[in-house]
């Protein structure tokens, strides 16, 4: 129906990509924390054209009771895409891809959550992709860490995620949808930055071993960059309030 044309080149002779980025450049990222009223914790991520909302509820009573674990919280994760999030409308019913992503995202976050603190409860993570443009599982993990921290769930560390790939025979950072579709490899990675521990890695395509090593290093570096942005976003709201009110106060008392 919608005739998409295969782009001639994904990378031009100057090393510029279709959207003008360099090979080792991230798309523009915007992170907001605590933007939903009802959820215990929430975050909103924009990365390129991705628009992802994450909410966390918990720890809360396990329903139904039989799924509860006696010595730790059960972490549940649902990755779901809105029907209007993709070029062609997607049926709202969960697809096999969404189910796989729900699992790998949960496994990316579990190592960071101190779930032994809340036995017999559930910690629920709900990810809604409002618009998707490649790398959404990484953006979702980045957002989910923020939402968990915003909910006050105790964590060993935040988890930061980013994908690397190969386009035009070169290793490139943070592939867009088009680049993933017509590129030669895509590898999403999630990291606990304080410990250099990798909690998610998937790959499809073809990479020589040296290419893989280079790609992994690039991914880890980006994850650390994204980690700094996460910390800024988390603290931002409270530092802003502090500035607002402490400044007001000092003005009034004539300091």
């Amino acid at each position, binding site marked *: 129906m919608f005739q998409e044309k295969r782009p001639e080149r994904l990378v031009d002779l100057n090393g510029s990509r279709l959207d003008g980025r360099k090979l080792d450049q991230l798309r523009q990222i915007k992170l907001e924390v605590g933007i939903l009223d009802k959820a*215990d*914790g929430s975050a909103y991520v924009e990365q390129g054209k991705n628009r992802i909302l994450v909410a966390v509820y*918990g*720890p*809360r*009573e396990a329903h139904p009771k039989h799924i509860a674990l*006696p*010595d730790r919280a059960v972490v549940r994760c649902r990755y779901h895409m809105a029907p209007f999030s993709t070029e062609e409308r997607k049926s709202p019913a969960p697809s096999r891809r969404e189910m796989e992503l729900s699992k790998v995202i949960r496994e990316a976050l579990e190592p*960071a959550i*101190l779930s032994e603190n*809340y*036995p*017999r*409860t559930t910690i629920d993570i709900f990810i809604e992709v409002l618009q998707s443009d490649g790398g959404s599982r990484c953006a979702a993990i980045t957002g989910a860490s923020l939402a968990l*921290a*915003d*909910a*006050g769930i*105790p*964590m*060993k*560390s*935040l988890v930061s995620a980013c994908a690397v790939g190969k386009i035009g025979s070169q290793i490139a950072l943070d592939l867009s949808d088009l680049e993933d579709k017509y590129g030669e490899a895509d590898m999403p990675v999630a990291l*606990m*930055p*304080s410990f250099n521990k990798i909690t998610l890695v998937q790959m499809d395509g073809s990479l020589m071993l040296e290419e893989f090593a280079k790609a992994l290093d690039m991914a880890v570096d980006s994850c650390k960059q994204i980690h700094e942005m*996460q*910390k800024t976003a*988390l*603290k931002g709201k*409270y*530092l802003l*309030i*502090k500035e607002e*009110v*402490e400044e*007001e*106060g*000092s003005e009034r*008392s004539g300091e």
Partner: protein
Amino acid sequence: MELNLERKQLVAPGEIVAEGGYFAGDNVYRENDKIFASRLGLVEVVGNRVYVVPIKGCYVPYVDDPVIGRIVDVGMSGWSVDINAPYPALLPASETFGHRQPFPKADLTKIFDVGDLVLAKVIAFDRTRDPLITVKGPELGKATSGRIVKISPTKIPRLIGRKGSMISTLKKQTGCQIMVGQNGIVLVSGKSSEDERVAVSAIYMIEREAHTRGLTDRIQEMIRKELGGREFVSGKAS
């Protein structure tokens, strides 16, 4: 032995707070030789104990905590109570005054029914079972009037203030009776709905600005602006 961050500095989960011979208190954990924050909050040091005062977190029951809860179910020998914790609380019939076992169920609903609000105290809680609460005690029992305010349980200490300073200010300036549950639920009962409205606003303001300085002054000023600077001497012990 080294403290990486200053006192009252805002810290995110996974950030290193201290290294070496410090002890790990609340909301931090130790790995090898380092102490990491596990929650977003403000760093605190008391002696050589390091901990974090969290911005947000769910309510974890502690023995002797006053709590305000809502009856959600009536059982054979007690009631199931929602105390805003990840675990439902159990109020055994034996923990009410003036009744002897066994209790026919009909009797229990006469004491507390689904939807009633109770002022209670935690008497037991551990990792293997749900919290136990009691309504035997002065000022405990069914709440019959007032407005409910729900705030993050982590802000309750700030609402109470050092030696109760903040909460007494609130009570004196608004003339309202204010019962504070450690579980983040507050019951406000005033002579007029205007007094109650201002008390409720003040409580939300404290929640929002708990991590800042000069809060007590700003609260006092806000209430003065709204209600005109009256002061009430409460006849009851707070």
